[in-house]
């Protein structure tokens, strides 16, 4: 235990001597979080719209007005034919073409149904999807507005089903109210920031741990340490603990940014978050330690780690919901500590989940951590010839 203290002191001295690195370790995640927290959203604030209005009626102009009035769309050009619009899409001058056919107004008055065509640049699929759904919402609302203005009319469908029922059923039989729990404003950032924080802490912590033992190998100091009476567990602990502490500090800084800059709601218990983080980091950094025992150079350590972290992050539900993945991928995700910790963070911070609610993922993390650390120590032990 005494030698562990000296070793830890040494590790911290080495880390803090490299001021540039410490600055990166502490400052960069914060800056990154500030930038990425703002970047990680699919909401499209304003989309550029090109108008092809072949109808030139009051209703077609009303439609374009509604789109513009929403402030979601700005008209960047218009012409009676789609050719120019198509070229503009190709050149990324516009995001969407709204094409209103001739007879738009006439169709609405006569048949209560009319067509509008939206052409989107789906080169950026996420943005296109979002833009499209905004446009549809606005157009739908406009249709309702027209519906209430136009004189009453019995639709063909109801005529077919028989006029007898007409008076017996109310016009709006079901009143649907909706409530988005935990995030009533549907703020995507609230959802992403905790996840991005996990990503930053994981990437930095795991990579640094993975490179740490190999670094001594490369520098030749490992040989020196190995002829001392230093115990294996003390050595491993000294390699793990500094970055474990640093990662927890980073997490703290990150949570402060999340709270005071992004105003992320923190409904649940913060001690619970830290307890889960402490366990999670043993698992995550344990992976780094295990890699460190398997490779010979820092470059290798970095690439193996990076490869694994990349798979972990993509399969963690950070960007796309786990439940949309195919079944095999969902099973794989169960073995992914990042997934469990992101889940815990989101549940505790956004939904106020209690220790009992997240007991299962915490248990999995603890199990995973124990397994990885045991493997790392065993693998390390096997190295003697």
């Amino acid at each position, binding site marked *: 235990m005494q*030698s562990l203290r000296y070793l830890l002191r040494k590790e911290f001295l080495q880390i803090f001597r490299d001021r540039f690195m410490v600055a990166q370790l502490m400052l960069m995640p914060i800056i990154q979080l500030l930038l990425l927290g703002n970047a990680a959203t699919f909401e499209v604030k304003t989309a550029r719209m090109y108008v092809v209005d072949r109808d030139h009626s009051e209703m077609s102009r009303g439609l374009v007005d509604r789109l513009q009035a929403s402030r979601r769309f700005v008209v960047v050009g218009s012409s009676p034919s789609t050719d120019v619009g198509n070229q503009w899409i190709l050149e990324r001058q516009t995001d969407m073409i709204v094409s209103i056919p001739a007879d738009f107004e006439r169709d609405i008055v006569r048949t209560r149904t009319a067509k509008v065509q939206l052409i989107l640049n789906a080169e950026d699929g996420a943005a296109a999807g979002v833009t499209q759904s905004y446009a549809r919402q606005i157009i739908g609302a406009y249709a309702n507005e027209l519906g209430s203005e136009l004189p009453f009319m019995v639709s063909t469908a109801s005529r077919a089903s028989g006029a007898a029922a007409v008076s017996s059923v109310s016009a709006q039989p079901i009143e649907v109210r909706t409530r988005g729990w935990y995030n009533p404003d549907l703020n995507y950032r609230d959802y992403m920031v905790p996840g991005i924080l996990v990503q930053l802490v994981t990437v930095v912590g795991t990579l640094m741990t993975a490179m740490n033992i190999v670094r001594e190998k490369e520098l030749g*100091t490992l040989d020196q340490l190995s*002829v*001392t*009476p230093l115990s*294996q567990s003390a050595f491993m602990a000294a390699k793990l603990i500094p970055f474990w502490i640093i990662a927890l500090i980073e997490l703290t800084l990150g949570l402060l940014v999340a709270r005071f800059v992004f105003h992320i709601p923190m409904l649940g218990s913060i001690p619970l978050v830290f307890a889960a983080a402490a366990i999670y980091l043993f698992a995550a950094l344990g992976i780094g330690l295990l890699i460190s025992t398997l490779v010979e150079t820092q470059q290798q350590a970095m690439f193996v780690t990076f490869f694994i972290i990349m798979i972990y992050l993509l399969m963690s539900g950070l960007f796309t919901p786990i439940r949309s993945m195919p079944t095999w991928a969902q099973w794989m995700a169960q073995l992914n500590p990042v997934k469990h910790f992101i889940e815990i963070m989101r549940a505790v911070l956004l939904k106020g989940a209690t220790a009992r609610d997240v007991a299962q993922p915490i248990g999995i993390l603890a199990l995973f951590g124990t397994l990885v650390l045991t493997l790392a120590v065993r693998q390390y032990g096997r190295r003697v010839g």
Partner: protein
Amino acid sequence: MTYWAPGLAGAAGESGATGAANGFAIDAQNLTRRFGSFVAVDHITFDLRAGEVFGFLGANGAGKTTAIKMLVGLLAPSEGTAHVAGFDIRTQREQIRRNIGYMSQRFSLYADLTVRENIRLYGGIYGLTPRQITERTTTMLDTLGLSSSADYLVGMLPLGWKQKLAFSVALLHEPKIVFLDEPTGGVDPITRRQFWELIYAAAARGTTVFVTTHYMDEAEYCDRISIMVDGRIAALGTPTELKEKFGAESVDDVFVRLARGATKGEAA
């Protein structure tokens, strides 16, 4: 390349200092190490008396470093036995580690720690008390004339100073035996002389010194030397004995004569 991991020594008890009874600091019997079909060290047998300065000579690739690695517990022997400070190198690595110092040809202090921090680290690892560490640091820095540089990063010191410092750090816990693997490589003649003065001082205090070198003038300073060729010990004795036996002017001559017959030698 096999790497050791700290503390691999099993839970062998402290009791087994059996070999110490015969008075040898090291005794090796038929020590052998193979890497696949290549025999790096081939049944070597030798012993060291306590307080002796033993020169372990050989061309590059003759098997010196492999032999040292087995003795200090960095490599397991394929065959044979050896006791270091009375402890079995197979089963009592932990006890051996407490009783030896080691300085390798690769510079082994941390370049990004200061002189003082390096000393404190190794003192702590060897279980010295903070007071002992402070005292010995002061003495060591005085002896080396490094007191004014105590808070310099080791990486900024000239090579000769680094080597002297590394040697002193290897002696910090007052080991029974110190292993020096080509300690003076790349060092100027004056510093080499100073280095050997440090070695003699340590030997005078009763520390056994096991040193490999390929500076043959240094071999003359040793109490006894062995010359390894192709993994075997080709000659062993005091420098004078060997010169007489081979009818040579200097240890250098003896060495060249023996090494000429080598098959592996420089090729490795």
